[in-house]
């Protein structure tokens, strides 16, 4: 008797609020060997993009869901056959009788795969064929979004209705169906991440009363200390010390004194957080979106810890290793577009937070320095603009600028002994 075990690969639950995921790429093909925990595919959810490890070692027997498909959490997306087994193989004549008792397994697996949302019932298939209809264009109200007989009949009735009213002199509006690529335009479906970003950005602007203030910060002290500590951090700790780490440290210290910037509006109430979960915006290569991983309890990190944490979330974001928990629960966000030379920005707040700090390019500028005796002199200094967008519903302008003044003072007066 052939012994075989089939393991269903299902769309994983990536965090409590995630209900579906999109298959970005299969890293193994059908028939390929796969080890347990070896990366099997890449998925994209509305929180993160990540790799899914194989739940078992064996042969990837069948890929049920193809790249680009979006399926509910728990849906079977592939079948792995373990140790020498074959997947739903044709029963060999000599072993047919022996195999019969084990056959329910593959049958059950197949029927699971057949009951997903793309199921087309016989009557719907027939009506679609009779009317030459593309079911993709009809929205389904049945289980799992299935197009029901009622849906397709309603669609036909709706599309026939205008024809019956051709006597009406007023020209009928051209029905907007699916847009088609013309003139060489390229058409592509939005990724899950892009849809999520689009929704979030729009929602934030619709929610918060955005106002932005810009501060010039003389980074001379920070530049000096960074150049001294950078090789040491790298050699002894394997950590890249960035200006962002300094800004983050200064921000966190200042947030303790200006708690409404580390807060959120919940209904008619203000929730002020006792901890700082610092979000760092990380751009994906090629304009393929933005993830905002969270450094939890950032108030407990010194300069080394902060630099290490920033490096960690950045690396994991770019290699798609973040978990949904990494992108939830933030209380304040820093975004860092200055690396490419930007000097001013008006960032959009990461809801439900109330402020976002933007670190701009470090640029050498001539500035007027007033010495102890009140004498002015022009000096060349490394200047970084820090832009703070805040929710004016909760944060008054004076409150915001006082916070920023403290951040600036903190950075400009960074001492040797301070870590």
């Amino acid at each position: 008797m052939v012994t075989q075990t089939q393991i269903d690969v299902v769309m994983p639950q990536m965090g409590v609020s995630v209900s579906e995921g999109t298959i970005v790429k299969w890293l193994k093909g059908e028939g390929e060997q796969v080890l347990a925990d070896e990366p099997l595919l890449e998925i994209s959810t509305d929180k993160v993009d990540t790799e899914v490890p194989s739940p078992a070692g064996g042969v990837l027997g069948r890929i049920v869901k193809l790249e680009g498909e979006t399926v509910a959490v728990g849906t079977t997306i592939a079948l792995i056959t373990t140790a020498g087994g074959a997947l739903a193989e044709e029963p060999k004549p000599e072993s047919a009788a022996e195999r019969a008792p084990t056959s329910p397994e593959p049958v059950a697996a197949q029927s699971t795969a057949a009951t997903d949302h793309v199921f087309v019932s016989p009557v719907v298939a027939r009506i679609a064929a009779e009317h030459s209809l593309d079911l993709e264009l009809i929205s389904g109200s049945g289980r799992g979004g299935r197009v029901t007989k009622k849906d397709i009949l309603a669609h036909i009735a709706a599309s026939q209705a205008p024809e019956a009213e051709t006597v009406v002199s007023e020209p009928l509006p051209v029905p907007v169906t699916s847009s088609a690529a013309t003139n060489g335009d390229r058409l592509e479906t939005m990724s899950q991440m892009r849809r999520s970003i689009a929704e979030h950005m729009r929602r934030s602007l619709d929610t918060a009363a955005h106002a932005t203030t810009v501060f010039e910060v003389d980074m001379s002290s920070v530049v000096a200390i960074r150049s001294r500590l950078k090789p040491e951090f790298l050699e002894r700790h394997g950590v890249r010390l960035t200006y962002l780490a300094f800004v983050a440290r200064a921000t966190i210290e200042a947030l303790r004194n200006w708690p409404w910037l580390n807060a959120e509006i919940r209904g008619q109430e203000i929730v002020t957080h006792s901890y700082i979960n610092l979000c760092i915006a990380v751009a994906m290569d090629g304009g393929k979106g933005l993830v905002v991983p969270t450094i939890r309890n950032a108030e407990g990190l010194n300069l080394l810890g902060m630099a290490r944490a920033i490096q960690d979330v950045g690396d994991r974001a770019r290699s798609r290793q973040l978990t949904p928990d990494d992108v939830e629960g933030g209380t304040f966000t820093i975004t860092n577009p200055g690396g490419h030379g930007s000097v001013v920005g008006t960032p959009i707040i990461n809801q439900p937070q109330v402020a976002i700090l933007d670190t701009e390019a470090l640029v050498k500028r001539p500035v007027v320095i007033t010495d102890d005796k009140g004498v002015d002199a022009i000096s060349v200094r490394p200047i970084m603009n820090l832009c703070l967008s805040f929710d004016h519903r909760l944060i008054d302008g004076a409150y915001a600028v006082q916070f920023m003044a403290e951040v600036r003072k903190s950075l400009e007066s960074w001492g040797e002994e301070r870590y």
Partner: protein
Amino acid sequence: MPEKTYLQAISDGLRQEMRRDERVFVLGEDVGVYGGAFKVTAGFLDEFGPWRVIDAPLSEIAIVGGATGSALMGLRPIAELQFSDFVACAWDQVVTVAAKQHFRAGTPVPIVLRLPSGGGFSGGPFHSQSPESAFTHVPGLKIVCPATPHDAKGLLATAVEDPNPVLYFEHKHLYRRIKAEVPDERYTIPFGKARIERAGDDVTLVTWGAMVYTAAEAAEALQSEGVSAEIIDLRTLQPWDKRAVLESVAKTSKLLILHEDTRTSGFGAEIAAQLVEEAFEQLDAPIRRIAAPDTPVPFSPVLEKAYIPQVEDVAGALRELAEY
């Protein structure tokens, strides 16, 4: 029009047939002096005398054998088997003799077997079965399962006229519970013609016997949820009104079959199979069956309630099909 119980309708129908046709007589255990276990033939002995109201020995095979023999000799016997469960004792006479006679010898066997069937009153495993499905598998038999007093009387008259052996399943739980208008005059209801108990658009519900009332309650409950169920009472299973079911499914594209008999190889399976064969391209959902589980009917009232399909079971299935 006078109101009669389901039991009175059967009783009136029997009396009418016996008054109309001298060849018609009844036989069975205790049908004479005692008036029948359920008093369906109460008073018959006084009116028609001992030659036409025969108290039979406690032997179902003798009752059916005697009925078959007298039918062959030109009479129109109506045999009462106290409980349909005991027709098993007469299996050989029903299946091997009566059902085959016309095919073997060309002689009709116009017998009617009255089979009080069904549960719902803690009758236990020997007095509660609904064995109609088993006999639909036997060529040569006609199977009748009236749900209403009106149908009970009209189908009985048709059964007496029919030249074939007719198994007339009367549901015990309906005997005194169901009351409706029944004409005094004689009328017949053709076999193989279903009755639309309730018209609807969303789901077709095919059933018969006492389950018609369970179905009606469930459909009524779902009306408020915006689900419109069409209930077809088949009335006879052999022949059964396939055309009515096909027409309804062409409209609704969803089918639920409900019966009190056990699930496996129940007549619901036959309906489902034929609908898939002939109306596959009309279906918008899997065909669903609700039936008793594959066990004997339990005695305990609690277990029996869990065993016999209930209104909420049917409502749940209708809801699921509507949402599918």
